[in-house]
């Protein structure tokens, strides 16, 4: 089975996020005064083959711990779903 994992990597709350602060400043400059905080992070989509959902989740957890996130500064969240059938030529939705 093919799975599609979405991995959200964000700086830990105690870690200062200068990019987020700069984006917040930009939003304020545009007049979005109600914005009180912005945190910038990374969004990764990993497509992988696995026997079942548990195995897929375990593998994505492991690869996230080893490489995708740095536990010293980052937290992560994983969303997993069965990948949609690839759309091939001739089957394109109308």
């Amino acid at each position, binding site marked *: 089975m093919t799975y599609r994992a979405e991995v959200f990597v964000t700086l830990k709350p*105690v*870690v*200062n996020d*200068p*990019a987020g602060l*700069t984006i917040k400043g930009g939003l304020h400059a545009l007049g979005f005064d109600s914005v009180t905080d912005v945190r910038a992070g990374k969004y990764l989509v990993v497509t992988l083959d696995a026997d079942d959902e548990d195995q897929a989740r375990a593998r994505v957890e492991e690869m996230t711990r080893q*490489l995708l996130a*740095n536990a*010293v*500064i980052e937290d992560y969240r994983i969303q997993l779903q069965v990948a949609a059938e690839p759309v091939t030529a001739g089957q394109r939705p109308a």
Partner: protein
Amino acid sequence: MRTGIVVFPGTWSDRDCAHAVGEVLGQAARYVDHREERLDDLDLVILPGGFSYGDYLRCGAIARFAPVMDAVTEFANRGGLVLGICNGFQILQEARLLPGALLRNASCEFRCEWVNLRVEQSQSAFTLNCRPGQVLRIPISHGEGNFFADAETLEAIERNGQVVFRYCAPDGRLTAESNPNGSLGNIAGIANDRGNVVGMMPHPERACEALLGGSDGLAVFRSAIHALARVAV
């Protein structure tokens, strides 16, 4: 001093390091390809600055898994001297050979300028020839050099005397203005607890000749030569 200078795809300061160690100091130096797995012939391994693997994902995150890094880890654990400069410092942290992490500069700007560094301790292999409190003038060139460690780790680093360099004013005072990137405690360089592995954001290899603006960086490399001579005695 037999020096190996590791070259990853995207490393850019390897030739500066080879020039400083080989030409200026007259030591044996060779490039080490990122696929090499043996470093037995070396006394010192330098991980130079640059943008290894395009700095994709995080600075140093991909380089950490290059074949040579297992050998670097083994070399460091054997007591071999390892110096990580700029991107090399980031790689050593990703490889967990040094604590903490380097975040984006607080200004969000790439900073390329001369800074003053206060030497905090002279026990590390790369500060043996310095005296604590001495101020070195060495350039930085980075966008992500903002030293971070959680409170517990930072406390341990400070208590163990692992802070090697701090950004300071020309007279050695630690000020907010002299901190170019927002680093906690003005930290510019740290050592492991054994003192044989040091990571620093400033580039000592670019401060080895008066012609290029200063030669304070020589102290870092001469300290390594001194440390090796001391071991050999």
